[in-house]
């Protein structure tokens, strides 16, 4: 299922480079939701995320003729969003009293999403939150990109600006910690 999706995107990509507006639109539509969700892990500011995505795709559109060597579109988009978003978040943080480190980091559980969790699951979600909070933010991000976004170690390394081995280490120890936690909390 994923294989055919990749092919589809490659095809579209070629059409897009040739100047096909419809292809560009499809590429944007296919990737938008996941990019947006990735963005929400860094900030609650939805307008900022949308802004960055707009800039990202506009730039993609302009540069299409010079973008020759993109072997895979997805890591390119994720990397561009990450860089752009983090830069803007940190810039904003210069004028606020909030610790920029805290703002511009990956956080699967952010306070404003707490209310999505139903009342009955509150206790468990607290436990999960505590557990996830105990993982380094880069580890959480690497896990997210690997398991939810199906990216390879190499691709994750290029997105996050890490060495491939660092990614492998994060993933290995991350999965171990998660496994330890969930084996203690069976059948929910």
């Amino acid at each position, binding site marked *: *299922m*994923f294989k055919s999706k990749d092919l589809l995107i490659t095809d579209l990509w070629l059409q897009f480079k040739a100047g096909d*507006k419809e292809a*560009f*639109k499809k590429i*944007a*539509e296919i990737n*938008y*939701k996941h990019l*947006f*969700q990735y963005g*929400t*892990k860094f900030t*609650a*500011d*939805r*307008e*900022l995320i*949308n*802004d960055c*995505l*707009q800039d990202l*795709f*506009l730039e993609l*559109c*302009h540069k299409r003729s010079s973008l020759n060597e993109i072997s895979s579109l997805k890591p390119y988009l994720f990397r561009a969003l990450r860089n752009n978003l983090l830069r803007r978040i940190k810039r*904003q943080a210069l004028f*606020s009293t*909030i610790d920029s480190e805290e703002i511009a980091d990956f956080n*699967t*559980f*952010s*306070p*404003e*999403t*707490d*209310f*999505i*969790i139903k009342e009955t699951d509150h206790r468990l979600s607290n436990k*999960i939150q505590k*557990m*996830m909070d105990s993982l380094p933010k880069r580890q*959480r991000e690497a*896990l*997210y990109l690997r*398991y*939810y976004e*199906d990216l390879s170690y190499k691709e994750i390394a290029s997105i996050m600006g890490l060495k491939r081995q660092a990614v492998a280490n994060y993933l290995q120890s991350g*999965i171990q910690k*998660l*496994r330890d936690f*969930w*084996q203690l*909390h*069976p*059948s*929910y």
Partner: protein
Amino acid sequence: MNKDSQFKNENLLDIPSFRAWVYYGVNDPLWQEWITQNPDRLSDLETARNILLSIRGEVDNLSINEVKEKVQDILHSSQIENKIKQSVTFKKDVNILWLKHKWNFAASIFLLIGLGWFMFSLTNNPNKSYLLSDFSKHQMQINLEEVVNTSDEVKLVNLPDGSSVLLMKDSKIRFPKKFKIDKRETYLLGEAFFQVQKNPVNPFYVYAGEIVTKVLGTSFGIKAYDHDENISVIVKSGKVSVYAQNTQLSQSYRAKTSQAITLIQNQQAIISREDLKIKLYTDKRLEFNNPMGDQTFEFKRTPISEVFDIIEKRYNVSITYDSNILKNCTITANLGDEPLMEKLNMICTVIEATYEVINEKIIINANGCGN
């Protein structure tokens, strides 16, 4: 298709189709079948599933229409940018200029606002003041009750629906003599603590500067002084929804500021008046002038006189009652964050009394608590 042997030694997490099933429900019958065939793997499956869900975290649901809309915007922008070189009408020029030189345009907006401030402050207010929203102008025209608090103490305001407002110093609240049938609307300048009467079919709105706070029944504080750069909303209990008004100012920002943020207990939203960006905090960053302090209004066989004392102090009201008649009365109740009127209703129901509010004083009529 012999899935059992295929997956027997493999880590479920590393199987793409397992992930697809957990995240998107792909091939559900296949996995249900697999579990039936391999019941000993059930706990493995649950663990793997839970791991994957905690890795993903919460899903932010952008609807298909929202995505299509955003992509449309992108296409539109790129097309407009392409047209810059061509000759266009004046109207389009403005849009193009705005998109291409968005910072310049934003600067001129600020310049206009600066002038606005200047004019406003010359005529009305020596202190710096932010652009009044359309709503502020709107509410000045309607016939509204207005209560101002210039004293250092909190001032209790009882709203037509029984809700309580404790106005802080240098604050002003406006509200109609009688609320509309479908909306309860109030206008705040400054700082106040609200305890709103529950009414799910009649939402309660507080318009404070650039933001609108919508509640169904809850207790919260809003701080929106003219001279402040930020507006703060803190929820003590219940749930409120906060969003920026559709004023002229917010329309000219490309970012749509109508996104609502929901706050629950112990959450605070700080809205920057300049760019209408909203930041959300929980617990530790809370700084709040809570007139109720630590008082939970939980009483256990508490003598009525003590209950009334506490209420008098917290709401800054005076309660007149015959202490002799009521000397045997005690209350066991959790009055929580109910508005003052509601608290009095509950108390009076228990002690079989009635109350009236005359000239801002509360008078209790009782027959005593016989045994």
